[in-house]
């Protein structure tokens, strides 16, 4: 799965997520990515989220919308992303990752899987990583 979350000069947020799904999946299996609120969510008033990981688990937990609701209730992007991803893994065991931008451009990145490839550009500086604590 791949995803992007952007905040433009007018303050609009947008999110895009695309995937091939899961290796060895049944013919006709549909995962979290096309399901708004699980794989993708965007709201100018709060922020945007794109998720990746074990699709059936992400969609049961509505992971993207869970992060949005935590931010709506005052959590910053990083805390909300960590709480929701860890909450999902604790509740349902399987792993995932998410990237988040708040309406103010604050970044959240968290994953309970072993790795997640990410990169972001803010104030013309490029940041990137793939392992925990990078």
């Amino acid at each position, binding site marked *: 799965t791949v995803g992007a979350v952007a905040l433009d000069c007018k303050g609009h947020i947008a999110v895009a997520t*695309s995937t091939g799904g899961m290796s060895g999946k049944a013919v006709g*299996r549909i995962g979290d990515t096309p399901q708004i609120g699980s794989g*993708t969510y965007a709201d100018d008033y709060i922020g945007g989220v794109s998720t990746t990981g074990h699709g059936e688990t992400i969609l049961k937990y509505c992971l993207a919308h869970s992060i949005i609701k935590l931010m709506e209730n005052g959590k910053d992007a990083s805390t909300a992303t960590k709480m929701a991803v860890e909450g999902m893994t604790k509740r349902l065991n399987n792993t995932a990752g998410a990237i988040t931008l708040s309406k103010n451009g604050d970044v959240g*990145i968290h994953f309970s899987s072993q*790795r997640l490839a*990410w990169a972001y550009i803010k104030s013309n500086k490029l940041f990137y990583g*793939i392992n925990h604590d990078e």
Partner: protein
Amino acid sequence: MVPTIIVHGGAGDIPGSRVEGKLKGVKLAAVIGQRILSEGGSALDAVEAAVVSMENDEYFNAGYGSVLNLRGEVEMEASIMCGKDLNVGAVTLIKEFLHPISIAHKVLTDSPHSLLGGEGAKLFALEKGFSPVPPESLISEHARAALNSFLEHGEFGRTEIGMDTKSDVG
């Protein structure tokens, strides 16, 4: 507002052999998206362009390089959402187009519906001028090997990429 973009290239037990290609791909995608933002472009266009870049790249499970279903076929899905009016577009069970995210964007702008799948998504894409590609052109050697590995093990990992084995990841 300071334009910002963040991208991801998938979560899982990513083996060391794939790390460099993934990092190169996510950096490129962020640069492509940021270029649109810095020229005053919309967040919607920026996220579509960033994802299109990764759908072209065999290091990512999307577009070319997508993983395979039990029949050895690519079946892709994508979604896109606009924070201004909560408008959405999504497609699923897409088999013969390189950029599902661009079709999803068209669903957002040109369809009264939110999610189109299978034959209907294909008809919509053709109607909107997207060119189909031979399905086998979307299949990478890595995806074929991953399916063979799955067929040996017969079970899903706890994540999206790879088995939940203790690979080289510390």
